[in-house]
């Protein structure tokens, strides 16, 4: 681990040096960097925006249809705003016999402007390489065992579209309020490495 610490402190110095170079050259100010961080992290959580879309879709079939047809319009309908450029946003529905999982094999693109930064494992070369090739094996590493008669659709966000999974509504959730439903949903459910 001391090797990692050495790399970490070396990298930390490189980042300080390049920030200083950019600030000295008048390219950026420290405040602009702080603001950019705040913009992407504030109120974004890891799931809330996506969970709200899912919970509403579980409660309202017509909203669900609109969400699956035009994810961008559905975001506007709920007052959800993207930070930065808004991509084509496509939501894909899990069904009893279909399970979806999202990846970007080339670099780990993710709907960051809506959901915030991606989980660390999503960006790993292991995930990027293996989920398109052996999704069942990858999902079982996440504790998700997809039955043999459930088909798996893997979505590789290789261009200007960004994807999110609409999990299947869990059994036993029938009496929950919308806010309680929002609490059930995890970032892994939105990527497809959990059932919800």
């Amino acid at each position, binding site marked *: 681990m001391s090797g990692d610490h050495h790399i970490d402190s070396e990298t930390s110095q490189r980042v300080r040096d390049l920030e200083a170079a950019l600030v000295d050259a008048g390219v950026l100010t420290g405040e602009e960097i702080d603001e950019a961080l705040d913009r992407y992290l504030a109120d974004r959580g890891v799931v809330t925006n996506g969970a709200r879309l899912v919970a509403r879709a579980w409660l309202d079939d017509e909203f669900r249809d609109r969400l699956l047809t035009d994810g961008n319009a559905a975001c506007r309908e709920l007052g959800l705003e993207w930070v930065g450029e808004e991509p084509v946003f496509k939501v894909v529905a899990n069904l009893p016999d279909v399970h979806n999982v999202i990846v970007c094999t*080339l670099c780990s693109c993710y709907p960051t402007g809506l959901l915030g930064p991606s989980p660390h494992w999503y960006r790993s070369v292991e995930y990027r390489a293996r989920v398109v*090739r052996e*999704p069942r094996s990858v999902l079982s590493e996440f504790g998700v065992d997809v039955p043999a008669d459930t088909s798996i*659709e893997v*979505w590789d966000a*290789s*261009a*200007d579209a960004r994807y999110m999974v609409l999990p299947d509504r869990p059994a036993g959730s029938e009496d929950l309020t919308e806010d309680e439903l929002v609490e059930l949903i995890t970032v892994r459910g939105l990527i497809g490495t959990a059932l919800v």
Partner: protein
Amino acid sequence: METHDIRIGSHVSVTPPNWTEHSRTPGYVGDRTGAVLDDYGTHPLPSSVVSGEPVDERLFSVRFDARDLFGDGDHSVHVDLYESALEVAHER
């Protein structure tokens, strides 16, 4: 041009990427055939943005069978591909 023939439902084959450009074609679909399931409209071609002369191209979502990509597997993989990477494939 043949690319005007590409639409939802088309079967298309994929030109392998030139890895020295900023190609957004993943190598694992190079020379493979899939079905166009969605049309995302036009978007700037990333390699053209990087080279400083941006051009817009149509972007499609193409679905491939794992068996065709890797020789095994019962899943499907959807990849988003720009029209210049695609050609209409003849029916098998």
